[in-house]
């Protein structure tokens, strides 16, 4: 088996004294699309943040393309080929849309295919129109597009996407789904956190359910029908 793009073993993370992740284990193969499921507050976002070293303290092992990243500074981790689209979108108010888009630098160790600005604007025509507006003046949907768009420029080949379909109009969600498929076909590795199961289900190769800071269920897409009942119970409100 090839080196996993991302391999996490026994990851613990804290916010201050609050112990959020209690030993997460997961592994993602290159080119795979993995969806992290779980209830609100289960720790999925925290998992993504911990990969990048954005939580308070963390412990365990995180290997990116085989390279141990637990002791690296955040920007060094990112440079290993990670593109992060945060849950709260992280659009900078003091930057225009275009500046937001151009903010992440191209990564040196380019493994994936970096999209050009033209390709991006072609994919999200709304953004082209509003490139001079201050970032946070865009509508929620536009902000979400911008947040995704800006990591496609960099050449990162592992994308961590936190609830990108949230709050978007159905057409856009469809566009995003198409986009993810395209990205997948181009060989991107994708880890998605999704509430919108309808959005995630057809895209994912693999599902992982997190509960109380631990992985409680992990199965490939093929097993989805068999696991559906268990999944419903784990995720029911």
């Amino acid at each position, binding site marked *: 088996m090839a080196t996993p793009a991302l391999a996490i073993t026994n990851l613990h993370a*804290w*916010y*201050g*004294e*609050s*112990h*959020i992740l209690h030993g997460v284990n997961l592994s993602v193969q290159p080119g795979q699309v993995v969806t992290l499921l779980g*209830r*609100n*507050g*289960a720790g999925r*976002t925290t998992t993504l943040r911990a990969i990048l070293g954005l939580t308070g303290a963390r412990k365990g092992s995180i290997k990116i393309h085989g390279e141990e990243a637990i002791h690296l500074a955040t920007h060094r981790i990112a440079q290993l080929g990670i593109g992060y689209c945060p*849950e*709260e979108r992280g659009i900078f*108010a003091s930057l225009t849309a275009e500046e937001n888009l151009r903010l992440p630098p191209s990564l040196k160790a380019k493994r994936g295919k970096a999209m050009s600005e033209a390709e991006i604007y072609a994919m999200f025509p709304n953004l082209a129109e509003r490139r001079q507006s*201050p970032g*946070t*003046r865009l509508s*929620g949907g536009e902000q979400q597009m911008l947040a995704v768009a800006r990591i496609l420029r960099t050449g990162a080949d592992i994308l961590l996407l936190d*609830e990108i379909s*949230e*709050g978007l109009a159905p057409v856009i*969600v*469809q566009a995003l*789904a198409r986009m993810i498929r395209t990205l997948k076909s181009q060989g991107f590795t994708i880890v998605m956190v999704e*509430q*919108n*199961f*309808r*959005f995630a*289900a*057809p895209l994912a190769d693999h599902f992982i359910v997190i509960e*109380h800071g631990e992985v409680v269920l992990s199965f490939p897409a093929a097993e*989805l029908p068999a696991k*559906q009942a268990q999944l*419903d119970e784990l*995720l*029911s*409100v």
Partner: protein
Amino acid sequence: MSEYILETQDLTKEFKGFTAVDAVNLRVQRGHIHALLGPNGAGKTTCFNLLTKFLTPTRGRIVFAGHDITGETSAQIARRGVIRSFQISAVFPHLTVLENVRIGLQRFTGTSFHFWKGLTGLKTLDAKVLSLLELVDLRDMASLKAADLPYGRKRALEIATTMAMEPQLMLLDEPTQGMGHEDVDKVTALIKRVAEGRTVLMVEHNMKVVASIADRITVLARGAVLAEGDYATVSKHPAVLEAYMGTEATELVGAH
């Protein structure tokens, strides 16, 4: 007396071009445990900050027990009996457990500005403090420094301090966050117990906790109220299902 102890009208908070709380009309019934739910960043903590004046609302009104408290300071609101806890535990780390609780009780003695007095006057409060600590199983740890407590015990201490203020309305921000399973159950039981005769408004991500103790639930998303009702209603509410977790995996157009 109105049946609602707390009402907000069009409560709104905007940060530099972004609305964190959007025209929220919240009504909390006296005696209820009322849960505030919503995804991360939905504006729950911001709501708490507005209610206790840690942030000034951009618009809207807050009425507590028939008084318009929109213009009052944090301390005034607290003295009206609205006491909050914080998402990240808020104890006084270098005071002992006993002193932590006593500092709250002390306010009622009216001696808080007496810089010339010794602490003997406060000792009379200790009995009451210990009985409060008893409630949260902290009595044995009364003389420890708060900083040395395990995290779950700190949250319990925080609740004890909050209770000491005899609040009419307790605002608890994620009281079980960051705890192990046993602690979660303990704290849930504790909240249920202390809620008797008071009103509690709490933010909680743990559905098990919410399902077991909440009388009423308000769900926020993107700063606005998405749904409201008891657990049964809310958990079936289509918008909530949509925002939380679509259980029917209906296929997306064009999928597969």
